[in-house]
C-alpha cells in the first residue's frame, strides 16, 4: 500500500530519547502530528518485521518502543517529505509541548 505510485517514498531514522520510551503522551503527540499530513506514514522500531500506521495511537502504543531505540519512518504521498521531516524533528527534540 505504501509503494503506491504517488511519487517517492521518503524515509528517516531517529533515536528515541524520551525517558520512558513511546508512551501515552509521546504517542498522542506523534499521531496528532502525523494526522496533519495527507501522506501515508508508517513507523517501526528499527529491524522490526512490521510497519505500523503512524496515525493509530493504539498501534503506536502497542509498538512498545523503548528508550534509546531507533525509530524508522517512511511516508508516501504528496506531502511525504515534509511529514518525515516533521516526525523526525518531533522525536529528536523529545516531544516538546509546543510541537503539536
Amino acid at each position: 500500500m505504501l509503494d503506491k505510485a504517488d511519487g517517492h517514498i521518503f524515509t528517516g531514522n531517529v533515536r528515541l530519547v524520551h525517558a520512558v520510551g513511546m508512551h501515552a503522551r509521546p504517542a498522542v503527540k506523534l499521531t496528532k502530528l502525523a494526522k496533519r499530513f495527507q501522506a501515508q506514514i508508517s513507523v517501526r522500531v528499527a529491524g522490526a518485521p512490521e510497519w505500523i500506521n503512524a496515525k493509530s495511537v493504539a498501534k503506536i502504543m502497542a509498538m512498545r518502543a523503548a528508550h534509546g531505540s531507533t525509530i524508522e519512518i517512511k511516508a508516501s504521498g504528496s506531502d511525504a517529505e515534509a511529514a518525515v521531516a516533521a516526525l523526525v524533528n518531533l522525536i529528536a527534540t523529545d516531544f516538546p509541548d509546543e510541537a503539536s
Partner: protein
Amino acid sequence: MQGSAAGLAYRGRTASIGFAHGPFVRVDVDTKDARVAGTLVEEALALRNAIDVASRQIADLAEMAGGEAAQILEFQVALLDDEDFLEAIFAAIGEGDAADVAWRSALDGQIADYDSAEDEYLKARSSDLADLRDRVINILRGGEGQAPKIPGGSVICADDLPPSRFLEIDWSAGGGLALLRGSPTSHVAMLARARGIPMVVQLGTIPDVGATALLDGEGATLELDPSAEQLRLFEARRESHRKSRASARAILRRPTASWRGERIRLLINIQSVDDLAHADAQYADGIGLMRTEFLLTDRGGLPDEEAQFGAYDAVLRWADRRPVTIRTFDAGGDKPVPGFTMDGEANPFLGVRGLRLCLARPEIFAVQLRALARAAVRGNLKVMFPMVTSADELEAGRKLFADIVQRLQAEGVAAMLPELGIMVEVPAAALAVATFKAAFFSIGSNDLAQYVLACDRSNGALAPLMDPLHPAVLELIARTAEHGRRAAVSVSLCGDMASDPRCLPALLNCGLRELSVNPSALAQIKQTIDRLSGGGGLG
C-alpha cells in the same frame, strides 16, 4: 403535601442491621442487563454516537482539569479518534455483535495486553482504558457518564445496586443503603453485612425528594425528612440496639462457645485484610472463609502474585496459629469480572463460575495458586475450592496446585501444598460428599439453598420461597455433617445461615459444630449459642 416527603416512613425488608442518619442520595444505576441490540446499522450508529458523546465529555473534563490530567485524558480522546482501532470494532458489529459487546471485547483485549506488559508505565494505562470502556458502555446504555460524588455518611437509595458499585462508594464515614427492589440474600447484602452497613431492601416506590433520611436496618424502615419526634424515637432505638450489642460483646471475652457440652468453633468470614479491623474479629477461633474475588475488582486489572501473597500473608500473620481458610477465586454468577469471567452466558449461576472458571483459565488460576503455595509456609493455611460438582474437579485443582508447589521448590522458593477442601454448595456435591477426597468441607448455604430450591437468590420476588430452613436444605446439611463425623473430616458452614440466630438451633441439630460468621454477627451468635445451651429460647 404534594411533592413533599416530610415525615413519611416506608417499610421494606432487613438486609443488614444497624442505623444510619444522613443526607438522602438517589443513585440511578445502570442495570447489569444487556442492552437490546438493534440492526447492524443501528448498532454501528449507536457506537459512533456514543464515541462522539464520550469524546466531548472527556475533552470537557480535560479542559476543566488542565495540566497533567489533561494530557492523560488526551490519550483517551486519541484512542476514540483512532480509525485503525475502531475499524476492528465496527467489523465485529458488521458480523452481528451488539455495539456494547464489540466495544467491551476490544477494550478488554487492550486492557489485558497492557496488564501483561513488563513496563509499569504501560500497566498504569490500563486503568485509563477501563475508564474509557465503562464510559462508552454507560452512554450506550443510556446512562450519563461519570457517577456523581456521594457525600460520606449518606443514606443511598437505588433501585438495585451491583456489588461493584457498592465497592466504589466510600463507606468510611458510615451511611446506609435503601433499595427499592433488591434482596436480602444478594451479593451486595452480604457485602453490607460484612461492612456493618445498614441496608433495607424491597422498599417499593418512594418519592424522589427528601433531603435527609433515617434508615433503621432492624425495623426495616426508611424515614424521609423526619420530624423532631421521629428523630427522637430513632435515636432511642439506636441507643437500645447499642446497649444490647454491648452486652453481647461481654460474652465474646469468654473463651469458647459450647452447646450441650460440645465445643462450638466460631470462625469469621472476611473478604480483605481490612475486615480484621472489626473490634470483634480478635475473638474468633480463626478465619473460616477469606474471599479472594475482591482482589479482582480493583481498577488495576488482575492482581499479580506479590499483591496476592501480601494479602494472604497479612491475614496469616494476624491469625497467628489459628486456622485460616482461603477460598480460591469465586468469580462468575452474580460476580462478573471483566477480563476473567465469560460474557454472555444465558444463565451465569449455572455457568462457568468458581472452580470451573479457574480450571478454564489456568493462567490466572496459576498466579493465585503460586501466591497461596508461598503463603502456606507462613501459617495455618487451608485452601478451598468453590462451586465443585465432581471429585475430578477437585483432583484437577489438586494436580495444578501440586505441580506449582513442585516448580516453586525447584526454583528454591519456600512453598508447600496446604490442606485442600471444598465448598459444598452444589447439591450434587452434598449428595455424593463421600466421593471427595477433601481434607475438610465448608457448606456454602446461600448457593446450596438457591440450587436446591431452584430460586435465584438475587431475585427479590422469590424471597418467600428462598427459605434456608426448608427441610431439603437441612437434609443436605445434615448428610454432609454426618459424613464428616464418620470420616473424621471437619465440616463447617460459612453461609448467611450461620450469622442468623434463627437458624442456629437447626444447624446445631444437623450436627454442625463449626460455624463461620460475619465479624459483626460474632457476638450475637455466641450469645445465642449460650442461651440455647442454657435451655433458653432465642431471646
